């Protein structure tokens, strides 16, 4: 008797075929999403690489990273097409008085670099994360270590949950109404810091609380049973073990802070600013100055100025650098998280 004729022989029934087809669809959906993400990132990387890298040593377009945005002048000179940034164009004009005036086309923001934007973004991220981490970690400690269930805590949790759902543009309006107008801080770093910090606060609190929860109860009880005060227990025996988790999860918060445009549009970002943030008369001015920021710069160059082949370079270049920074932050968080997970096991 042939072996294939037993009762359990697999048959290609219509149900099985349908199953195969539907599972294929699910798989296709998954890979389609990944493909879309890859296309977005790939396009920007490939086209941005042209601006950021160059064929000659040092292979990286240092001008793009170290200088401020300038207008680009394109003109014909002795039969050659010249492309010069604003400053270079002026020296060139001085040296070659025969350059026909008015014959050059100029394109705003298309030359120079994005150094002030990088600086501004870094300042915004550092300041707002400092505020958000302080507030968020302390709040998480309260919620996880001190709080006992009750109406008050339910309210706090509800507030955190709801705060997480507030659109970023509403945070922008709030920051504008409170810090810029009511406190009179104008468009400033300080206003941007607080707006971004409040926006990212729920993320930080949730991440910190999870890390604190992951610290075994035995650590606390053991410490308390040895006569440690609650404060000593938290400082010596809970926070040190939760801190790596808090920091890595918070890096995702950094990615969000760095990536948001809407909250800083009216609170901290300038379209263009000649001075760098540290070029201030007195120390306190530092906090009350607006800055340029990468995401806002992308918005400006991609929608506020006339589009042409020259602006495209700076658009893709800025987007690439921005994506690179955010991707680095995100990857760092994932790698760190995995490493710490392996190191701290209890």
């Amino acid at each position: 008797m042939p072996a294939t004729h037993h009762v359990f022989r697999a048959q290609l029934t219509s149900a099985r075929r349908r199953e195969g087809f539907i599972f294929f669809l699910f798989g296709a959906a998954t890979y389609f999403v990944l493909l879309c993400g890859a296309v977005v990132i790939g396009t920007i990387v490939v086209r941005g690489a042209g601006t950021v890298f160059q064929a000659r040593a040092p292979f990286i377009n240092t001008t793009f990273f170290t200088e401020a945005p300038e207008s680009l002048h394109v003109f014909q000179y002795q039969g050659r097409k010249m492309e010069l940034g604003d400053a270079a164009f002026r020296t060139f004009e001085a040296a070659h008085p025969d350059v026909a005036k008015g014959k050059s086309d100029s394109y705003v923001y298309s030359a120079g670099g994005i150094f002030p934007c990088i600086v501004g973004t870094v300042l915004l991220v550092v300041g707002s994360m400092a505020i958000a981490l302080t507030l968020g970690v302390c709040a998480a400690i309260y919620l996880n270590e001190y709080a006992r269930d009750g109406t008050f805590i339910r309210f706090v949790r509800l507030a955190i949950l709801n705060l997480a759902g507030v659109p970023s543009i509403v945070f922008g309006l709030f920051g504008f109404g409170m810090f810029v107008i009511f406190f009179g801080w104008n468009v400033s770093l300080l206003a941007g810091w607080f707006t971004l910090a409040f926006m990212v606060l729920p993320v930080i609190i949730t991440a910190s609380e999870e890390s604190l929860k992951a610290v075994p109860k035995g650590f606390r009880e053991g410490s308390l049973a040895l006569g440690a005060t609650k404060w000593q227990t938290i400082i010596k025996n809970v926070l040190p073990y939760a801190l790596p988790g808090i920091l890595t999860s918070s890096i995702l918060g950094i990615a969000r802070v760095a990536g948001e445009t809407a909250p800083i549009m009216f609170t901290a970002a300038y379209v263009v600013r000649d001075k760098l943030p540290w070029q201030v008369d007195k120390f306190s001015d530092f906090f009350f100055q607006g800055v340029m920021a990468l995401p806002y710069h992308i918005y400006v160059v991609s929608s506020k100025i006339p589009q042409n082949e020259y602006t495209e370079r700076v658009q893709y270049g800025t987007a690439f650098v921005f994506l690179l920074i955010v991707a680095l932050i995100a990857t760092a968080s994932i790698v760190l998280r995995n490493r710490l997970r392996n190191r701290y096991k209890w």
Partner: protein
Amino acid sequence: MEASSPASHLLVNKSRIRLFGLSFDDCIRVFFGGNAIVSIIVLALITYFLFREGAGFFGQNRQNLTVYRQAGLEYIDFIRAQQDDHTALTRYLSDLRLRQFRHYTQEAKLPVADANAKLAVFDDFAGQFGDTVEPIRTLVSDLTEQASAIKEKFTVMEDKKEERRQLMAEGRKGDADRVIITPVNFAEELKPIIGTLPAYKEASAEFSRRIEQVLATAPVLPTPELQVRMDRFKQLTREYLSGFPAVVSHLESWDYAKPVPAVQALTSFIFGREWLTASFWQDWYGVIPLLVGSLMVSAVALLLAVPLGVGAAIYVNQIATPAEQKFIKPGIEFISAIPSVVLGFFGIAVLGQALRALSQASWLSWVPGFPYSERLNILTAGCLLALMAVPTIFTLAEDALNNVPRAFKEASFALGATRLQTVIKIIVPASLSGIISAVLLGLGRVIGETMVVLLCAGNRIAIPDFSAGLAVVTQPVHTMTGIIAQEMGEVVQGSIHYRALFVVGILLFFLSLGINYVAQIVVRRYRISIG
């Protein structure tokens, strides 16, 4: 006993430092508690400052509507509406001409010149119909000037009042007294406008007579199908004519002094179908076009994101091999880290054009709305927002699927169910509440997203034309988030426009709170009890 006394000493708390009756540990507790309250405070502050800046809108809007009435703008808009309706009819005619032209060139294969020649009669008819409105048009343009002048006078008076108030505030009473305020006597100013009523009646009668005349000369169209449209046009025109007496009675009963009810300041915002600012005539702050825009974009985004996100979650959770899971999950998480402004830029630079090019491909012409010409529209923005919403939906839905006890799955398999049957009949229903709340949170994310819609939705402030059916998604719209981001930087602080943007913000704020709330309710109420 010698041991007992030191023991009681040690147990009793005496030496600890106290501050306001609180021990050191209590102080720390209070400090941390203070931080926990911050989120409540922030939420309260958001509400407070949105209302602080936005609440003034309703008073100003009522004033805005009052001036609209008192300066006679409302009166003139009755007549203008008549003119606009006529314009709509002429547009119907030009559409009809296009259809005929297509018929002649494509089906009858006539050369363009011949086709145009064939249409000469129709063109003559359409031209005459278009001219009929002339008497009304002249009247409206005269009246417009007069009403604008009255409104201008009123604005000047308000400015002077403001100037004087400021001078008084600065304590310069002398200067303040020198500011001359000439009150506007609306009754007097309006007389010439209202006085045109007989002239209007005459013009209107003339208008209606001319339409009748022209209508009688309507040509017969070549195909029955086109003739049906012509008949439809005639019917529409008759309906239009029958509306004339109503306009007259509106004009006759119109009273400039009739107060604008306070609630209208609110209803004209919530139900207003026009968002028109910095207009020479009258500003309107109706949120409907923006709300519809936001909802349309979100609907398209969710329509794409829900199947993809939930499908991917089911795939990863139930079907994928561990090796696949290892790169799919971080991959999708990584997509969520792409900043929205970068996605928006991608939409402007690449996706808009790509989709339009796709729509012009001949093999896709059966798709409703294809081909289209607007590069930035609901579809473009919706696609990008879908990409933003997928990671949110995926992560939360995957969590929900993960929470279904293994026992359910095993029991189902033990009964001889296939994997598909298990997924559809057991796993998905058991985690449905989680999936629904994932979708709702995805909606919250999408509706509150700013940069993508600002860059890619097309920014045309109008209610999309739903009569186009599914093709509506190829129209540009503006959104609530987009309008705030776009106009906030350009408005005068404290102006009605500025406050209107804050009111849009309030609406957005409560909308997102509402979505959040429903998501929580869904999770709480329909959670299956596990263990």
